[in-house]
């Protein structure tokens, strides 16, 4: 067949001259050697496929730009390109390690997403509005102490200074506030969990 007779150098020259089928012959002639070479380094069919493709994209660009100087070494040149791309691949991977999820190891057992999903965020909003309504039900003095303690994070000493009562009174109001809220929760059977 003509394929086996035409040299790589002639095919490259023909391709540069615009004969697209010359590239087809070149690819088909060398694909196995180049692909096997890449696969022997990366041991992953998909990655090998990607690198094979990138190699020929580089080859095509270089040839079309007329930057290739023929020295009768088409295959070694392509092999060198693929070799460099394999190195690039490993460099990129060492910077950003890839985890394969298999039966032994699941990356999501280590990583978790802390943000709430739609359902949970709705529940969270409901719980918060229920709690706010419960707080509103409390007598003013108790609500004031609870608000300062839990929402403003003040100490009982600061609360007693601000409200002008003793620390013990503030503590007592906090205690009654919690007791009253628990009573309302039990009475109305309110569920405040997510």
């Amino acid at each position, binding site marked *: 067949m003509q394929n086996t007779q035409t040299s790589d150098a002639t095919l490259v020259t023909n391709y540069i001259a615009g004969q*697209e089928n010359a*590239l*087809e012959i070149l*690819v*088909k002639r060398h*694909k*196995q050697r180049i*692909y*096997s070479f890449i*696969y*022997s380094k990366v*041991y992953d069919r998909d990655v*090998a*496929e990607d690198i*094979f*493709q990138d190699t*020929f*994209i580089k080859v*095509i*660009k270089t040839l*079309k*730009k*007329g930057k290739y100087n023929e020295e009768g070494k088409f295959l070694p040149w392509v092999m060198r390109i693929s070799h460099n791309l394999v190195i690039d691949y490993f460099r990129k991977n060492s910077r950003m390690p890839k985890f394969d999820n298999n039966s032994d190891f699941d990356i999501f057992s280590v990583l978790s997403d802390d943000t709430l999903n739609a359902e949970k965020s709705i529940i969270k909003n409901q719980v918060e509005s229920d709690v706010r309504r419960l707080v509103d039900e409390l007598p003013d003095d108790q609500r004031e102490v609870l608000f300062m303690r839990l929402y403003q994070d003040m100490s009982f000493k600061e609360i007693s200074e601000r409200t002008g009562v003793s620390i013990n009174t503030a503590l007592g109001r906090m205690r009654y506030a919690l007791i009253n809220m628990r009573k309302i929760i039990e009475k109305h059977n309110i569920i405040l969990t997510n």
Partner: protein
Amino acid sequence: MAKLYSETPKIENLNPKDETVSFILNYSKALSVINYKNMEFEALLN
């Protein structure tokens, strides 16, 4: 004799997928490099 615990996968007659090869050939057909003065443009006509 010492046991070999590592396994070297056999590489034989591996070929890229036909899609990959056809992608490359189509890419080649679609790409044209235009030289204008000392500028260079790549045009991908698909």
